[in-house]
């Protein structure tokens, strides 16, 4: 199994470790609920070094990346980053990712750990007719996410210039004497930063961030808390809420599909848009404390109308929440039933997001 540069740190912190996409990752330290609270009230720091980093360089970088991804890379300035999907010819989602415009001829794609190999193969295959070079830097960069309403106040103590970063912008900054790419992004719904650093610098930066953070309530947070935070903030998770058989339109991600440019999957998506969606992701508030989990069926008047894609108990809202792929006729405020291990539990369709945190805009 693969290990991040912070493996020894997690063990020293007594983390419960799990296998996540072939990586030995911390599920939790003190407990998922208290870690979620740290992120919502103070600061949680996450090891997300397992994420894949793919570099694209060359004269045709911008054209190629724009062709590869559904969102408009060409309209970014150097120093800006965008969230996007990458689709196949049928419009199915291969992955969702962040695309960084490092320069006029350089881009960095940050992809899901479980998809890094698949993505790389797809990208290299598609790059053949473009003047670009594709390389995998996944094992060269560590990645630490600093997330929570106090993130800016805390990080500015060590890297004062990060306060200038608007949401979804990044730059090169020194922190504790180490040069890193710091980006104002995250996956929790809170304000925060993601620090891309050299693999070998990662433990030092992690230890400093933890050691100096007592007054700010800085705590390590694991993948369990990360999943709860992202679900409360209603961010989709690849492999749960979407996969190759889901289109970005169905996943509620039409805002990252730009039909005014050419990209892989455009015809299929355009056709789907014109014909109208048959199903789409909706938010559910389960009217019980039981958790609706991935794969459970959803019913309306006895008829199956969809399936749960993600669900958790939200400690922030004190409610059981879920995302479900439902017939598109169903609208917010309608009630449905979820079959939770043989018991039909009422749930109400609600507008997303479930929770809006300190994140600058969304």
């Amino acid at each position, binding site marked *: 199994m693969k290990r991040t540069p912070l493996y020894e740190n997690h063990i020293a912190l007594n983390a419960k470790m799990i296998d996540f996409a072939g990586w030995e990752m911390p599920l939790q330290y003190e407990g998922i*609920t208290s870690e979620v609270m740290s992120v919502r009230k103070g600061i949680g720091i996450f090891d997300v070094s397992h994420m894949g980093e793919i570099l694209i360089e060359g004269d045709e970088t911008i054209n190629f990346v724009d062709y590869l991804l559904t969102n408009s890379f060409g309209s970014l300035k150097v120093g800006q980053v965008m969230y996007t999907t990458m689709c196949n010819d049928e419009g199915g989602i291969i992955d969702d990712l962040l695309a960084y415009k490092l320069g006029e001829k350089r881009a960095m794609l940050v992809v899901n750990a479980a998809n890094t190999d698949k993505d790389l193969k797809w990208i290299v295959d598609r790059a053949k007719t473009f003047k670009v070079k594709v390389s995998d830097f996944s094992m060269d960069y560590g990645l630490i996410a600093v997330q929570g309403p106090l993130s800016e106040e805390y990080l500015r103590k060590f890297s004062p210039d990060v306060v200038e970063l608007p949401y979804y912008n990044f730059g090169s900054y020194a922190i504790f004497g180490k040069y890193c790419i710091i980006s104002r992004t995250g996956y929790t719904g809170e304000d925060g930063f993601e620090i891309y650093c050299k693999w070998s610098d990662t433990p030092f930066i992690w230890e400093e961030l933890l050691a100096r953070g007592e007054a700010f309530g800085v705590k390590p947070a694991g993948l*369990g808390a990360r999943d709860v935070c992202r679900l409360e903030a209603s961010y989709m998770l690849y492999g749960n809420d979407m996969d190759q058989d889901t289109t970005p339109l169905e996943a509620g991600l039409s805002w990252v599909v730009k039909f005014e440019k050419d990209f892989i999957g455009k015809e299929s998506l355009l056709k789907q848009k014109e014909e109208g969606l048959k199903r789409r992701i909706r938010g559910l508030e389960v009217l*019980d404390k*039981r958790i609706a989990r991935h794969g459970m069926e959803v019913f309306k008047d006895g008829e199956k109308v969809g399936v749960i894609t993600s669900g958790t108990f939200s400690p922030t809202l004190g409610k059981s929440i879920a995302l479900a792929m439902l017939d598109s006729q169903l609208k917010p405020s309608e009630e449905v039933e979820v079959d939770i291990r043989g018991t039909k539990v009422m749930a109400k369709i609600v507008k997303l997001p479930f929770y809006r945190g300190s994140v600058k805009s969304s």
Partner: protein
Amino acid sequence: MKKYAKTHEWVSVDGEIATVGITNFAQEKLGDVVYVDLPQINKEVKKGTAFMSVESVKAASDIYAPVSGKVVQVNERLNDQPELVNKDPEGEGWLVKIQMIDQAELNDLLDQGAYKKFCEEES
């Protein structure tokens, strides 16, 4: 007298009434409990079969009856404070009281020392 099942429930016996809960080992494995699906009073339970469930952020887990009998009381506090199962699993976080029909079943359960050893082997 306190006894333990290999499915990680504990039983504390007072006359014919057995108080049942999950062990500290079990709650650590389970993680933060968010919902306890308590059984109906008077529900008849059979040793070794699932009769209720405890749901954590991670998963829902069935709880197996360590003895046969009838549920005579449930820990109502868990409806509002499911976290008691994590905080004090072998005390305030108890789940149900069962009126036993066959006290001889207790002989099949482990004592504290044997249970501790069993957990060490399992983890």
